[in-house]
């Protein structure tokens, strides 16, 4: 299926779940409501015309500083004398972030049989950083969801063993959140530097 028919197939099947969709540079993307994720994901995997049997990637985005140029103080606190470069203008601009939500979980699906791809973005409510786990459908989601929990602090409902995977248990906070101080260090042994 091409990107347009991929998007229409899903939008027609779940008209209430899809918030928006776009096709940027040939990559189909749909933005979903968090509560309908597991239902749509099951359809993506089982449907004969879709058969998204490979979960290529699962990640998250913190949009809290998206589109805002970092202040000079931000770079000064790192101890490095770095000035942000002027942004390179894009001919075809990225459709932009999900409005008014801070975090979004991003899934990349691929169908080995049909050789098509789909990006699914789940915009999380700021009050409730929780989304359904996909470990029952794709076993490979297990460690990816643990990574997202570790780095962003987004919980996955129904995950069998949601604990840190990259950082150590003693680590406080979630380092890829934009409000994690860039110069905060939490060494297990040795000096803080």
């Amino acid at each position, binding site marked *: 299926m091409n990107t347009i028919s991929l998007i229409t197939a899903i939008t027609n099947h779940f008209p209430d779940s899809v918030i928006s969709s776009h096709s940027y540079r040939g990559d189909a993307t749909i933005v979903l409501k968090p509560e309908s994720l597991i239902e749509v994901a099951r359809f993506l995997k089982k449907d004969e015309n879709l058969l998204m049997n490979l979960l290529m990637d699962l990640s998250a985005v913190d949009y809290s500083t998206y589109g805002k140029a970092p202040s000079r103080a931000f770079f000064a606190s790192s*101890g490095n004398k770095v000035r942000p470069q002027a942004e390179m203008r894009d001919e075809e601009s990225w459709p932009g972030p999900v409005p008014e939500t801070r975090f979004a979980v991003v899934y990349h699906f691929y169908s080995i049989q049909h050789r098509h791809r789909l990006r699914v973005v789940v915009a999380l409510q700021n009050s409730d950083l929780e989304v359904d786990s996909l470990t029952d459908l794709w076993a490979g989601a297990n460690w990816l969801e643990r990574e997202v929990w570790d780095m962003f602090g987004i919980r996955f409902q129904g995950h069998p063993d949601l604990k840190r995977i990259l950082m150590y248990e003693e680590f406080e906070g979630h380092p890829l959140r934009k409000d994690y101080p860039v110069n905060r260090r939490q060494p297990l042994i040795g000096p803080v*530097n």
Partner: protein
Amino acid sequence: MATACSHYDVDRFGAGFPRFSPRQADVLFVVGTISHKMAPVMKRIWEQMAEPKWVVAFGVCTCTGGFYDNYATVMGIDTIIPVDVYIPGCPPRPENVIDGLIKLQEKIQNQHNTGLRDTPEPRPDIFDV
């Protein structure tokens, strides 16, 4: 890798025999970035080595942390264990590695007969930014 292979042949300097237990080793080559999660493990390996023992910091990440000035990385293993020879480079040239190895051999030659070493230089306190 290249240093150990035939073009450079580290065996010529009597150093081509890696031991896979720290208890049998004389020198610890720390190769690659050390994260805060890994630091206690590395210190334990160093503690398991029998005296006399030496440490070589191999590569700029091990020496100083390199460009990984972030939440995960140890800024130089000498904040945790004493280091005898630093081999900079990313990655170091095989010539640098051999040079470092010869410097270590010289250092060992010039050490006191008792096996005691000079007190290492204190680490400069440059991180109070």
